[in-house]
């Protein structure tokens, strides 16, 4: 599979010269299989540009939403396939205990927040609520599971027919409430089994160790927690993701380098930058 990063910023789109290298668009990742299946992970502002790379002949696209916070759905209304009458668009995402996925999406995709209502979209729209066990999407097997983040939020584990595994946990606070982290086995750690032995793990890295205590419960990880989580799950390659809007390129260079130097992970770490592609 080919994994491309179209938006790596967390919380709020952050354009500008000081964020140009890591990118200012919010969460969006594409996954392309060898048989042509395209999965789009989250619909942050990066999805608009991502959509321009979808083959005009494509008749089916799958968008997998981890949750419905604004930075993960703000680009959805600008996802070009939604306006193509001959395209099947499958949107996967979590319902809440009280509202369906459709009802939750309509809160954004309806006036006054957006001029076009969900029901007016010309495409053939299919909504699927997750987590729903393992599902086959084209040549991929996709597993979803609820993870620790405010509101219903899932992570995705994506396996291709060659056995390569990508795990996507862009908003994740596995250390919440733990006296020490990690201190429990994978089965008792949020996202632990979902991410085990991944060839590529894209994971929340919003805060520094210094910043984290002021944001406990906000649903994000410190760089150190992310690196320790990578060790716990025996990640082979980790991509720090969901960068804080307040961190410039120079900040991220320094903070990530310091965290790696401190934790000395036994696996490869590649800071997530908009435009990057990984071949698994």
């Amino acid at each position: 599979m080919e994994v491309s990063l179209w938006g790596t910023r967390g919380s709020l789109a952050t354009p500008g010269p000081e964020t140009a290298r890591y990118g200012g668009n919010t969460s969006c990742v594409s996954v392309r299989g060898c048989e042509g299946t395209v999965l789009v992970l989250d619909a942050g502002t990066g999805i608009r540009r991502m959509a321009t790379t979808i083959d005009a002949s494509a008749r089916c696209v799958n968008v997998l939403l981890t949750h419905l916070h604004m930075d993960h759905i703000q680009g959805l209304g600008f996802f070009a396939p939604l306006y193509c009458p001959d395209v099947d668009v499958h949107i996967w995402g979590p319902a809440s205990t009280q509202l369906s996925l459709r009802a939750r999406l309509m809160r954004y995709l309806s006036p006054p927040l957006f001029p076009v209502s969900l029901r007016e979209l010309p495409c053939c729209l299919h909504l699927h609520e997750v987590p729903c066990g393992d599902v086959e999407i084209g040549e991929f097997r996709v597993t979803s599971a609820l993870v620790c983040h405010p509101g219903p939020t899932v992570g995705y584990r994506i396996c291709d027919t060659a056995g390569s595994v990508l795990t996507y946990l862009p908003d994740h606070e596995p250390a919440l409430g733990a006296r020490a982290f990690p201190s429990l086995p994978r089965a008792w750690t949020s996202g632990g089994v979902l991410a085990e032995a991944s060839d590529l793990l894209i994971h929340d890295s919003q805060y520094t160790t210094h910043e984290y205590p002021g944001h406990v419960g906000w649903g994000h990880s410190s760089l150190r927690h992310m690196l320790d989580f990578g060790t716990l799950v025996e990640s082979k390659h980790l991509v720090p993701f969901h960068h804080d809007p307040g961190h410039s390129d120079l900040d991220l260079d320094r903070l990530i380098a310091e965290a790696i130097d401190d934790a000395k992970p036994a696996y490869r770490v590649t800071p997530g930058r908009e435009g990057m592609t990984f071949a698994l």
Partner: protein
Amino acid sequence: MSASKSIQIILARQLASCVAMPILLVDAAGTLIFYNEPAEAILNQRFEETGEIPVEEWNRLVAVTDEERHPIPPENWPMRVARLQRRPISRRIWLRRGGSEWRHLQVTAVPLVGEGEEMLGVMNIFWEI
């Protein structure tokens, strides 16, 4: 992939680890999957030593009576009622593990029901009387 606990159960354990009330967590099958340090004092055993305890073993390990010291069969224990009848229950009991001393307790068992009405387990809060 190996078996994972649900996020609700993981968070319930995190909560139990941070409070002073004795708490026991059982899963949907009735297996005792965690008890916190205050509960260790009541059960006179450490979770680190026992790990998870299957329901059949748990039934053999502890004796439970009502206030009048009449034995309560396992099917009427609060944790079992909460799990099988999907309702909270609170009652006073006497409990002891093996040959240790009897403890007089108020037990409140609350079913943990996830999205889609999935039974995830039961949180049992003990209060020593």
